[in-house]
Every structure is written in C-alpha cells, then in structure tokens.
C-alpha cells in the first residue's frame, strides 16, 4: 500500500486486510503510542482511536513527536524511531 509518512512516499507491506494505526506504529518501531501524536490526512487522531482507525491507499500520515527544551530531557524512544526511519 502506498502512503505518505512525514512527507515521504512509502510502500508498506500489508500483512492483513485492515491495517490500523497501531499496526503502523508497530511496523515503524514505535513501541509506546503515548509518545507520538498521529495526524491522518490533516486531522489529529484521538489516541483512543489508534486501534479502530485503518489506513488506506494514498493516506497522508504524520508522526509528531514530543520535544522538550534545551536540557534535552527526552525519551530515548525518539532516537530509535529516527534510526528505524533512516534504515528503511
């Protein structure tokens, strides 16, 4: 399935008929859904709907990450996400 994630076109290998936001987060190695906000086609999704929201061909998805301040108090999960992104 072709989707756009954070502005980049990606061809996702879908292993089931209905592919939810939670499934996508897993594929993208985001372990804690609490650490990311997801925008689907211009609308921010409520966290409680990640499981019941399914993505389809052509969707535009944005992962928005928490960012703190100059002290760098920030979860390590972020770097993992970025590394995973870069390796693909």
């Amino acid at each position, binding site marked *: 399935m072709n989707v756009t994630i954070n502005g980049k076109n990606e061809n996702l290998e879908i292993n089931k008929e209905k592919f939810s936001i939670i499934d996508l987060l897993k594929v993208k190695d985001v372990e804690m859904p609490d650490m990311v906000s997801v925008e689907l086609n211009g609308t921010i999704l409520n966290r409680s709907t990640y499981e019941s929201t399914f993505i389809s061909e052509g969707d535009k998805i944005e992962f928005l990450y928490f960012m703190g301040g100059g002290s760098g*108090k920030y979860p390590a999960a972020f770097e993992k996400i970025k590394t995973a992104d870069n390796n693909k």
Partner: protein
Amino acid sequence: MNLTEDQIERYSRQIILDNVGGKGQEKLLQSRILIIGAGGLGSPAAFYLAAAGAGNLGIIDGDEVDLSNLQRQILHSTDDVGRAKVDSAKETLEKLNPDINIITYNKRVNAQNISSIISEYDFIIDGTDNFGAKFLINDACVLNKKPYSHGGILRFHGQTITHVPGSACYRCLFETLPPKGAVPSCSEAGVLGVVAGFLGTLQASEAMKYILKTGELLTDSLFYFDILNTEFRLLKIKRNKNCPVCGDNPSISKLEEKNYEQPVCDLKQQR
C-alpha cells in the same frame, strides 16, 4: 512617541523595511514581550528582541547558570556560573541595548503565578525545558487569550507553533504530558547549541511579526526541522474540536498544579 536620533540610527536597518518603518519601530519600543526561560531558546530570542528594540522584555527563570549551560545558553558567560540566570541575562541585554526595559522574575512559572504574570504582556515565548511547563504555558495562554510561541528541541531537531486566540494550540497536537515511565535519564539525551539558536530566533521573529502585525504567523502550522539531515517541513494543522483546553467542550477550565507534574531529572544527581 517620537523616535530620537539615536533610536533612528540604532534601528535604521529595520526602519527602512516597509514592514517596520518608524511606526513599527515605535510599536516595538512600546511592546511587552515575555520570555519564559533564559536558557537555550530564551537566549537567542532575548538577544534579537533586545537588539531590535523590543521595549519591555520580561524574563522569567528560577535557575542559576551552570557550566553545562554555556554550550547553548549564550546570554550567559563563564564568569556568570552560579549567578541567577535572570541577573546574568539582564546585564548582558542592557549592555547590548540600554534603550530598553528588562523586567526579571527570579522564579519558575506555576499554576498559581502564571496568569497574573502573562497578563502584563502582549506576546509570550515558551523557552522552557520541561513538559510540565510547556503544557502549563499553553493552557494559561489559551485560557487567558494570550498569543504565544511554543518551541521544542532535541538533539538535531526542533519544532515550533504559534498560537493566537482561536488557532490550534499545543494540546491540539499533544493531548497530555508524556507518561512518566517514558522519560529516561538526562544523560541519554542531548542537543546541539545551534538547534536552540535556530529555533529561539524563529520564536523571536514570531513575536516581532505579531507586534508589527505584518506577514504570516506560524499559526495552524507546525514548523519542524532536522538540522542533521537538512530537513525542513511546514505542516498545516487544524484546531482539534476535541482539544481538552481549546476544543468545543474543554475539560480544562482552570490551572491546577497537579495537571502539570512531570518528573524532573537532574543531570548532577546522576553523576
């Protein structure tokens, strides 16, 4: 007010811009801008606003200068280590521009004091380093109908949004503070000083545009950058009808300290 000859000369390079002019310079000199946090973001923001003649600059910070701050917090110098950040900031900025008034608050913002402090200002810049303060500033600005600039940085990344009454706010994007268990030790993170410099400068330009009523603000948008991979993105965002503070049926109607508790990690304790 009438600009003096000295002022006309000092600010000449921006007065000749159509978007500023003599009238705009007067607006800047009469403006009241509050910078919360005299650190990585607050330093460049305060420097440029002071230089531009932002006439009444409020700076709030309850910390003292630490040697590890100097890599990015350019308001402070080696001799300032151990001093209150607001004192060091005031001295630096007054040296740069004695034409302006620096108002300092040697304290941290909290649910009790923030509303009365921000009520004195036209525009607020969030230069804080923790999520508790970031959510508190957002909620206080939304509830008190104050325009403000949010900024967040990490390692090589930064992001910023501007909120004015009616536009999308920080909570439209991030509903609640990140969970406690997800915050690792400070030693795992880090940031490049130039990332703070870049973002703080953007925040200062938002304040100036707001005061001058010129150009387009970064409202209903999130600007994101990754300096390492030279990625710059402007993402359009919409006000979230379900936002707990600015949505159609908000659940947050007053500021309560318990809603902004976030584990504080202190690098020194981990050495």
